């Protein structure tokens, strides 16, 4: 099962075991990870599931055009590591991801 580690702005972290095809956003909501809202349910239309993908054993496709457009307007600064976590769906059963949760989402 893939694992995702969520690192909070204060440095605290939580590692959870998730399932393939479950997005990093959905996994965060299921475990009430603070700072990830995911209001639109994964349609890449609200921009409230922004994370910094710091490390990943699985490589993901670069952001789509729509995701790019949303990332320009994230509440916290955009970096090269910025992703919408609803678009990150591990497909490797052994995937290990570390994502940083930004200071603000809205």
């Amino acid at each position, binding site marked *: 099962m893939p694992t995702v580690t969520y690192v909070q702005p204060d440095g605290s972290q939580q590692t959870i075991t998730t399932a393939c095809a479950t997005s990093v956003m*959905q996994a965060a909501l*299921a475990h009430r990870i603070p700072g990830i809202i995911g209001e639109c*349910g*994964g*349609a890449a239309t609200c*921009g409230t599931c922004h994370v910094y993908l710091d490390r990943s054993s699985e490589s993901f496709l670069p952001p789509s055009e729509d995701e790019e457009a949303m990332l320009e307007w994230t509440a916290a600064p955009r970096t090269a590591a910025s992703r919408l976590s609803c678009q990150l769906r591990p497909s490797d059963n052994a995937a290990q991801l570390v994502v940083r949760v930004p200071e603000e989402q809205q």
Partner: protein
Amino acid sequence: MRDGIVVVGGGHAGVQTVDALRERGYSGPLTLVCGEARLPYNRPPVSKELLDPATDPTPAPLRAASFYRDNGITVVPAAALGIDRGTRTVHISGGMAARYDHLVLATGARARTLPLPGAALPNVLTLRTAQDAHALRERLHAGTRVVVLGGGFIGLEVASAARRVDAQVVLLERGPQLLGRAVSEPTAARIAEHHRADGVRLGLGEQVCGFATDGSRVTAVRTGSGRLVSADVVVVGIGAVAEDRLAHEAGLPVQQGILVDQWLATADPRISAIGDCAVVREPLTGTTTRLESVQNASDQARYVAEQLTGGTSRPYRALPWFWSDQGALRFQMVQRIASYDRTVSSGQSVLRFEGGLLTGVESLNDPSTHQAARRLLQRATPSLAELAAVDHDIRVLARQAARARQVVA
């Protein structure tokens, strides 16, 4: 609080309420009464992905079962039958009851039906739940003759889903444009163009006046202009009716929805109403607003949770936004207020103004402009002149505002 908080309704509003209450540290008893047998699920896909035969017919739950268990939230998969305000009790089907210190009504809305003979026949469908989506997708096949009644968001999303499987689609809308007054004329015209190009036959200004039936199913839809449109399936998408029965029977004021004040409280201070079922009344003007959107449900839920945990005394206020996916078309809208006296087209978006101030932005496949408008309108209300100075490209103003904030910070 000893009896705790009871939330009625398993949509986005109900789930967000219990989530936000626990997030804010509320540790008392918490019960979520949801009328459907399955765990609360993500609603927007009901009229989109869930209609696609290639997708998993099981809707994605909003939260996993472990979420409710780990956070001490009792989920009751049964319908609330009545509220006894005297004893602060919600009666639930199956002989159950839940006592409350505070009750949050998040009962949502149901599909409006047509009061015409034949409307109850099995091939006349409405769309509100995952079960409805399942019933509809079972009937959608290549060549199926689908008649969609109503050119609102649900009707248009259904039309796109039906075209995806190569069904024949006729959409009848009684008004002169799609989407009624929800969007401006230029946007409605572009959306109509998209659907025509997608192969949908649009009948604007066509009132439905009856059904032809063979006794067991509807065979055609009869319009006011005398047309008879053959149908294998009829989908009625003529809007939704707020679920306000519980409140009404408990003696609370309703007005096509549960009437609440600016603090989202009903006439009973121990009962709040949020989401699709709630009608917010402005005290000074008397104007009422009822919104059907994920944003409204979520923002109102977080607000009520904040209030119940002692966090706020300010009136509810949020910037409404909305989206609709119709095949390859993504419509997005943000609006401070619904009114406008002037529109200006800017690329794939339409800016709406009233009294020279921006009131809202409608975007078609232009998420960048939509998101920029949301960012900007959260903090400022740009004027027509300010926007004209940047060629009506709201992204330029939003970038300027973001830079200015960084400088101040």
